[in-house]
């Protein structure tokens, strides 16, 4: 309890400490990755977090209270709020480095999401089996495992439609929500491909297999616990019990697109930070990897079987929604992340493993988990006198203080399931489900009816068992 209070205190202190209405002349370091150059700029005042808060509020309330206005205007709202932050950084702070860095992260994020979305849209999996809680458990477990091979986005896009089709006569919102919990988030904690924050850690110097070696003992019981809760809820669902006969066949179409998925996975590693022979396109805010991914988007869409696209009701709207909203989220969260990084460095000595776990987790649920992870990684390294920009030091830190790294890795990935905006695929799964006729809970209902009662107790158990009183 003391640790939780400490974490909340830390979060509040970050905001108070950074002087709500004045730019106090503090500075922040922005890393320009390609050049490994460190440039200092003024820290933004705390009121610059307001556009981010407004955007979060709009995402939460728009679909409930002004649904059609939101549907028509969300791109303009996201861009307008993002533009406020961008203009502030350009005109007041003269800080183009933070903007370029964020643009590069956004392009990398959307290239991966879009390419996985389009390539998997051309794959059709049909399972003609009777829906049972046990079959659903198997699908969720498979999803959790393959999320580590093709990413949480790839696994979500590949499995959400077959999962819904199997359950079409008995589907309820909890099916989709547990799918988001397990396949779109928690499952992907074992490899850098699984979830973007771990990939950023990998680029900084953490070994590829570090996560599977150090996180599996947390991942396995957590996935098991969430699936077990799902199983008992699903057992009570008696809808759709009929005498219909099933062939038990599993049909798979769109092999060509599996090839595209493999290309995307290989391209993840085509980065100057991983392979020294890969040319950097600096100062452009994208690299060879993003060019390959965007090319796959085009080729996979043009080359996909029209019948499969039609059967999947493939449409660009879900990815368009993510692309627009995350333009706003990425831009408006720059000040929030910089303030957090600044405070985390100041308070680094006082922050324990528990505080790192809860602070990374809570912020990952509402901010994008990738930059949040990187900032807390930087704070942890700072606490022990290491530098996040030096690969050998990150590697050394991962060997000497694994418990710290484990806590933020677990928290960043797991807590992404807390809200629709915690991780990219959450929103896409929601959008696909709604288009299929499933009425999904609102932002708040998701949080209050599902995340808080199901995930928070599990994440608390994880904390008590693995991190409480350590470090």
């Amino acid at each position, binding site marked *: 309890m003391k640790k939780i209070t400490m974490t909340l205190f830390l979060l509040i202190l970050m905001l108070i400490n950074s002087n709500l209405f004045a730019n106090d002349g503090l500075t922040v370091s922005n890393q320009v990755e390609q050049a490994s150059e460190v440039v200092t700029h003024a820290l933004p005042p705390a009121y610059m977090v307001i556009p981010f808060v407004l955007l979060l509020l709009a995402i939460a309330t728009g679909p409930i209270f002004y649904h*059609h206005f939101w*549907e028509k205007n969300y791109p303009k709202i996201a861009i307008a709020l993002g533009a406020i932050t961008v203009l502030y950084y350009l005109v007041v702070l003269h800080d183009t480095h933070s903007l370029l860095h964020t643009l590069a992260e956004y392009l990398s994020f959307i290239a991966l999401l879009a390419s996985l979305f389009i390539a998997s849209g051309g794959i059709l999996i*049909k399972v003609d089996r009777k829906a049972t809680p046990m079959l659903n458990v198997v699908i969720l477990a498979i999803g959790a495992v393959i999320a580590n091979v093709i990413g949480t986005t790839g696994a979500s896009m590949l499995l959400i*439609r077959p999962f*819904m*089709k199997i359950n*079409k006569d008995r*589907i309820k919102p909890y099916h989709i929500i547990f799918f988001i919990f397990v396949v779109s988030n928690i499952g992907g904690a074992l490899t850098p491909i699984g979830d973007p924050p771990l990939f950023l850690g990998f680029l900084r110097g953490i070994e590829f297999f570090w996560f599977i070696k150090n996180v599996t003992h947390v991942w396995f019981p957590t996935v098991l616990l969430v699936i077990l809760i799902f199983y008992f809820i699903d057992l009570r669902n008696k809808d759709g019990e009929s005498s219909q006969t099933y062939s038990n066949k599993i049909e798979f179409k769109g092999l060509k697109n599996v090839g595209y998925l493999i290309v995307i996975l290989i391209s993840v590693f085509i980065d100057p930070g991983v392979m020294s022979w890969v040319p950097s396109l600096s100062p452009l805010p994208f690299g060879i990897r993003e060019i390959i991914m965007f090319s796959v988007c085009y080729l996979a869409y043009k080359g996909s079987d029209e019948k499969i*696209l*039609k*059967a*999947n*009701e*493939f*449409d*660009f*709207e879900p990815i368009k929604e993510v692309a627009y909203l995350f333009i706003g989220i990425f831009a408006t969260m720059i000040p929030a992340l910089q303030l957090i990084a600044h405070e985390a460095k100041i308070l680094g000595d006082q922050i324990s493993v528990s505080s790192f776990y809860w602070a990374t987790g809570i912020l990952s649920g509402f901010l994008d988990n990738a930059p949040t992870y990187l900032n807390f990684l930087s704070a942890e390294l700072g606490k022990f006198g290491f530098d996040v920009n030096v690969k050998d030091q990150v590697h050394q830190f991962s060997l000497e203080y694994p418990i710290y790294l484990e806590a933020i890795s677990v928290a960043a990935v797991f807590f992404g399931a807390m809200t629709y905006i915690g991780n990219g695929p959450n929103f896409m799964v929601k*959008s696909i489900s*709604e*288009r*299929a*006729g*499933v*009425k999904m809970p609102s932002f708040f209902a998701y949080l209050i009816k599902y995340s808080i009662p199901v995930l928070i107790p599990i994440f608390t158990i994880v904390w008590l068992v693995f991190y409480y009183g350590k470090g």
Partner: protein
Amino acid sequence: MRKLEEVISKKINPLYYGNRVLLPFMCDILKIVIEKDIITDFSSSKKGAEYYKRETYTEIYFHDYDDLEDYVTKYETIKMIIVEAGQDVFDFSNHIKIAFHVKEKHILEMELLNDNYLFIE
């Protein structure tokens, strides 16, 4: 009064004009999915949709879409669960799932949905 079977066999296409849809048969509508909107309330004349059973056709107005052409893309459809006029609405076997593809010249192409489509009743 035309039957749905006749409409399908003679390939008589429904029509749309902006936000108005004309189905060439009479039916009750139970659910419409258009984009992310799931419409089951047809009582309002301001939001969602409303429909009228005319003598030979059914007329639907979508209040939140100025022009359906702007919203429903090539691969997307307007999906409906309908019950033909004269059929027992309480018998689930009479619930028919249909998709409408927006085409040029105000034409909607109608397709009875099979299991390939993901449409939850």
